[in-house]
């Protein structure tokens, strides 16, 4: 089996067999993480740059830990402490970093397509750690890993994503990945936060959270992105909670045993109540644990020596 691309930019158009390869490898790495010495020498001598142009705690730590568990050398870059503040362009920044001989770049950026743009200016393999509202593939992979781990399968399940669908890269990557793996994907959220023509992606749009809960096996609850809500797309946080918040009363109405997921960071008492976030159905912290394993798998599978040869074969 071979990966089709030497980069991981998104899950759109990725084959089910490649997704399965990422997930299978991640499960093996999870075992490594449970050992007394949770570190392997696999990426010794490889250098990974973590380019974070947008704030992140979980994803950045998760990538960094994954790199260290694989014995790679890491350089961290964040906007606040770099020459970007002095007006350097993305291309110049990365060219400069690449001339220091790097093998892999992990990028988080507020512009959709930033990761794709990077692949055109550097030789290293690029991993998208979230580009604007476009994709966040490693988050979707760890979500799928958590579902697979808890429910033993992905195929045939009904996964409903709740909240700010429009601004969510997590949602887009999940839709592509889950559908490729044979799951049904539903969405539920306030009208102004649903993209136009979302049905064309083959998802079910649930008009109310009650209807979504009645049919779902998994609820993936998105964060209300306060930083992207400048236009007043819904009246107030309180009203959002009243209509779409995942409360104990609502979860108790579920017919099946629900799996509750959230990519973090949570706004407790807005999109999710603490009782649910910390309750028996919640796998939110398992998602974080699995995140490191998934990122180890992605780094391992993308770290090739003859990467230029792979790209020739795939194009």
């Amino acid at each position: 089996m071979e990966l089709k691309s030497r980069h991981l930019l998104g899950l759109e158009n990725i084959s089910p067999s490649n997704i399965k390869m990422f997930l299978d490898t991640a499960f093996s790495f999870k075992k490594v993480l449970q050992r007394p010495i949770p570190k392997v020498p696999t990426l010794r001598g490889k250098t990974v740059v973590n380019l974070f142009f947008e704030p992140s705690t979980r994803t950045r730590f998760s990538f960094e830990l994954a790199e260290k568990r694989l014995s790679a050398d890491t350089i961290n870059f964040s906007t606040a402490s770099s020459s970007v503040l002095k007006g350097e362009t993305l291309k110049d920044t990365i060219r400069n970093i690449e001339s220091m001989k790097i093998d892999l770049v992990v990028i988080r950026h507020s512009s959709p397509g930033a990761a794709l743009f990077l692949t055109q200016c550097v030789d290293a393999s690029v991993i998208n750690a979230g580009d604007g509202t476009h994709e966040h593939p490693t988050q979707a992979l760890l979500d799928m890993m958590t579902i697979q781990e808890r429910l033993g399968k992905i195929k045939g399940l009904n996964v409903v994503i709740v909240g700010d669908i429009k601004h969510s890269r997590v949602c887009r990557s999940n839709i592509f990945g889950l559908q490729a793996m044979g799951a049904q994907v539903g969405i539920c959220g306030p009208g102004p936060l649903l993209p136009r023509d979302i049905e064309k992606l083959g998802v079910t749009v649930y008009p109310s959270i009650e209807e979504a809960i009645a049919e779902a096996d998994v609820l993936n609850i998105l964060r209300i992105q306060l930083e992207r809500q400048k236009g007043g797309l819904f009246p107030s946080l309180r009203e959002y909670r009243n209509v779409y918040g995942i409360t104990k009363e609502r979860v108790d109405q579920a017919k099946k045993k629900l799996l509750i997921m959230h990519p973090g960071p949570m706004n407790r008492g807005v999109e999710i109540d603490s009782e649910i976030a910390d309750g028996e159905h919640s796998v939110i912290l398992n998602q974080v644990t699995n995140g490191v394993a998934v990122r180890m798998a992605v780094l391992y599978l993308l770290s090739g020596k003859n990467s230029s040869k792979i790209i020739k074969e795939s194009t």
Partner: protein
Amino acid sequence: MKIKSTLMDSKNIQRTLKRLTHEILEKHQGIDNLVIIGIRNRGDILAKRIIESIKNIESSTVPLGILDITLYRDDFQLFNEKPVVKETDISFDISNKKIILIDDVLYTGRTIRAALDALIDLGRPALIQVAVLVDRGHRELPIKADYVGRNIPTSKAEQIEVKLKEIDGEDSVVLIES
């Protein structure tokens, strides 16, 4: 690729494993503190058979561990296609244990080198010994087996293929010219 000759058949393999088991038991005067760890793929199957054989001789069992060395290989940067990472399954603490490491073929010694690194990351064993079904020579590292089923001198152009019922449907060791 053509098969040059069959070096061992099912009966030969069975007898050889039995002899290896006796040698291990003789050397260690029993099974105190002994654990058997097989290297994927095929070393783990041989390990299971040796444990079965110990059970027949000593009427008690020793722990089995299965080791995947993929992440410790020194050559994987040379491939485009990444080897599949399988799970290491060692459910006991290896510290202060006497480990018999089992593999099917000993060749360059690089697999054993990787296995030693992998084991040391799991704890500090009292000792590690190596048992192999076939030693074909051409070592690239200062490594030697403590228990050898069959010494088979080969040329580098040849390959040794060990087939085992559990994976390949039959037991045999064949010499292949590539």
